[in-house]
């Protein structure tokens, strides 16, 4: 058996290491944790502001991926953890595999749950079985790929239904292990109370008030490293402006709200406030409804894509705090980003292609295609400043090629109901064009990327654009069936070329992450691409 050592040697090449980083679930880095913050190394108490209640902080009750899932993972350890470009064992001492299908996981000894009970292999087997039965919850993990799980002494073996080189990052580093002795009687996971928020992680949930927030106390018995902050007060402050005001006064020490580009400079200039920033991997898209004319024609989508200056959107809407979107969707910093990712902006080409399609200028300079004026509604979330600005800019850009856009802003739920009713693409969609976004995990997992594009709803449950193309389906089959990382790199390159040709949507930009903190109270904030700075590496010096 090939033993990947205490640290999972992802590959002998740096490229392969980067590929894993690009394929993790729950947000993953592509570079070592970046110690980019300044300030004291330790602190007694830190107050961190979050925007809304995150439930009882169990894997089944947190409400958001960020920051909810990040907080859950500070209480519940997974079997592995992503450190820099590597997936290394956490509760598992090492990760062993020779075919990416059977994984053997010897567990660490001497680990205890927060209530003092011993952590055992039985807890891991129970966790997998429990997740299999309970798919509800933001941090609940899809373990359907695990065909068998068994324990032999202190070692757990997992056998997958097919080889998956991304398994350590997507599942092992993302599955919060739960204690059998507390969870085995639980039937309604959405009602799990704080008494079940007991993990093996570096912080213990000491207090919860759903209007005010949480108190997390350092786990002084933590065997895997020493927490550097004794107490974390997590305060719920819904308003972004109030969070930044409280940061200025020193009432809080860190805001989990991304600093808007227009406020970045003012905050940076203030004494005792630092900014930790980096790549988020979240994407902002312009969706076309591929299921209705004329967006069912790839030529039309491609022509409109060429009319949009993504660099201008970044410069104007994000004040340069972002990266223009790649025509192949994948973030250019990702190791899976292939070949030419330069934007396709070319107004002359867009006009020529629309002319070639027979879209003749009509009344008010709006083109007419197949007897219908090229006039469309563009939906945008009213709460997102950068998307509102982008939508207005897109309206101007498309008017340059004779396409009229009517921008309609609405609340997120109303927009979701039109684009993705009940989160079920089989129900269809009711829009022409829409501003949209996917969070970091979608960008970083080849499995989730495939779900954006597969024609059939069963395989493509995230295909909100209603895109359908047999060639793309084949490219996706090739990507997801590859048993090796090298194979996935090649397959990902083919897929991106296909996306660029078909333009099911326009990838507009990837916004940078920037978070503000008090540099006079704590400087341990560590940036991880795709995970921001709120994660256990910011609070623990791991000894793995």
């Amino acid at each position: 058996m090939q033993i990947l050592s205490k640290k999972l040697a992802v590959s002998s090449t740096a490229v392969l290491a980067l590929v894993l980083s690009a394929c993790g679930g729950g947000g993953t880095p592509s570079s070592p944790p970046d110690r980019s913050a300044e300030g004291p190394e330790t602190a007694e108490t830190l107050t961190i502001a979050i925007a809304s209640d995150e439930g009882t902080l169990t894997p089944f009750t947190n409400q958001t991926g960020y920051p909810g899932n990040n907080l859950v993972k500070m209480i519940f350890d997974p079997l592995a953890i992503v450190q820099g470009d590597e997936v290394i064992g956490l509760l598992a001492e090492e990760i062993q595999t020779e075919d990416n299908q059977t994984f053997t996981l010897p567990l660490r000894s001497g680990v205890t749950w927060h209530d003092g009970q011993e952590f055992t292999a039985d807890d891991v087997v129970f966790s997998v079985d429990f997740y299999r039965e309970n798919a509800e919850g933001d941090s609940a993990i899809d373990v359907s790929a695990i065909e068998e799980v068994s324990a032999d002494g202190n070692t757990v073996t997992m056998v997958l239904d097919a080889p998956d080189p991304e398994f350590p990052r997507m599942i092992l580093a993302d599955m919060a292990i739960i204690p059998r002795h507390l969870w085995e009687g639980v039937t309604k996971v959405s009602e799990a109370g704080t008494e079940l928020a007991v993990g093996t992680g570096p912080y213990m949930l000491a207090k919860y008030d759903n209007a005010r927030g949480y108190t997390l106390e350092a786990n002084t018995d933590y065997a895997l490293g020493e927490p550097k902050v004794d107490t974390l007060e997590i305060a719920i402050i819904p308003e972004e402006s109030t969070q930044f005001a409280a940061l200025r006064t020193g009432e809080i020490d860190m805001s989990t709200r991304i600093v808007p580009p227009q406020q970045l400079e003012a905050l940076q200039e203030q004494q005792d406030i630092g900014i930790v920033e980096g790549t988020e991997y979240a994407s902002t898209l312009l969706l076309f409804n591929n299921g209705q004319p004329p967006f069912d024609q790839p030529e039309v989508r491609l022509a409109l894509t060429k009319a949009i200056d993504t660099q201008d959107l970044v410069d104007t809407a994000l004040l340069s705090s972002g990266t223009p979107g790649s025509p192949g969707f994948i973030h250019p910093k990702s190791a899976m980003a292939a070949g030419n990712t330069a934007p396709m902006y070319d107004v002359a080409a867009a006009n020529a292609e629309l002319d070639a399609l027979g879209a003749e200028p009509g009344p008010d300079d709006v083109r007419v295609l197949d007897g219908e004026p090229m006039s469309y509604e563009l939906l945008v979330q009213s709460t997102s400043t950068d998307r509102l600005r982008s939508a207005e800019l897109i309206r101007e850009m498309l008017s340059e090629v004779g396409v009229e856009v009517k921008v309609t802003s609405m609340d997120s739920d109303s927009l979701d109901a039109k684009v993705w009713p009940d989160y079920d693409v089989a129900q269809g969609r009711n829009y022409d064009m829409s501003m949209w976004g996917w969070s970091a995990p979608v960008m970083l997992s080849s499995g989730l990327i495939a779900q954006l594009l597969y024609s059939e709803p069963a395989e493509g449950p995230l295909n909100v654009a209603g895109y359908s193309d047999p060639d793309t389906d084949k490219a996706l089959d090739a990507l997801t069936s590859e048993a090796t990382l090298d194979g996935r790199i090649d397959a990902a390159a083919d897929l991106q070329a296909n996306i660029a040709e078909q333009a099911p949507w326009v990838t507009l930009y990837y916004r940078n992450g920037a978070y503000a903190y008090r540099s006079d109270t704590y400087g341990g904030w560590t940036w991880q691409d795709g995970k921001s700075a709120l994660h256990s590496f910011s609070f623990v010096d791991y000894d793995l």
Partner: protein
Amino acid sequence: MSALQVTAQGTTGALRGRWTFLVGRLLEYVTVLFVALTLNFLLPRALPGGPLKLFGSPEALARLTAEERAQIATEYGFGDPLHVQFFEYLRSVVTLDLGTSLSDGREVTDAIADALPWTLLLVGTSIILTTLIGIMLGVLGGLRRREGKGTGTLIGAIVIDSIPQFWLAMLMIVWFGVKWQLAPTFGATGPDGVTVPGVLQHLVLPVATLTITGIGYIFMYTRSSMLGVLTSEPVQHAHARGIPRGRLVRRHVLRPALLPVHTLIMLDIGFLAAGAIVVETVFAYPGLGRLTFGAIAARDYPLMQGTFLVLTLMVVLMNLVADLTYPLIDPRARAGGAS
């Protein structure tokens, strides 16, 4: 027929009239309550989206099969036919078992019981201040108007009344919280938990915001009412009889002038929970307004219904109190049986 018999018949008739009035009013309230409860049930379900989003990330929900979706909806009560849900809702109102929040698994009654005292403290304090200041300025404004003065105060009141609560709250935070650091910017308590100084300090900015934005309304209403009474015939006659101005105002003007203000304040108290949504959200104040806001954002049907119910009951209750107390301060209502 003796005078005694006439008096007895008159008393009986008055009592009968009083009972008829009370029963009529009671029926009105029951009808209003039923309509309000029906709306409370329908409004959450008329909003786009639904509580499914509480059961996982969008990516995870997208993977659910139709059977799994149906199972979740049935298990948590939002998958039943609408009429079944409605009767279940009415049952829960009658038994005061408002169910469990879909967001965090708490009993809805517990969530409301935790939040309500903070709202009562916040809005109660601001209503007292708003009423005192608003009435005082309104009375002075009315009297000064008679002397051809007070235009500046009126313009000031109109300006204040038109200030958006959100905007003023942010100004309060920037000036008094960040710039001068006179008061905390968020929350209801300090790091030491619930202490009197901590609670009072955290009350300053939200109360000031609610009070300032509420004064203009009461001022203008009181001023207008004062002007109406001051120009009425009885007051003009009293003035002509040479009654001193101070006595005239105290005995003949204030009481009738403040009658409509009394009703207005009662309604204000009824709307106190709703009125604090913006302020509680901006200042992260853990009251009923923020609970309602969170419930709406999460499409948490049981919690929405619970908070709407409290709001409804408050409005109905304060209307009832206004009805019952009106005759105490207006003798005409006592004589006529209706206000």
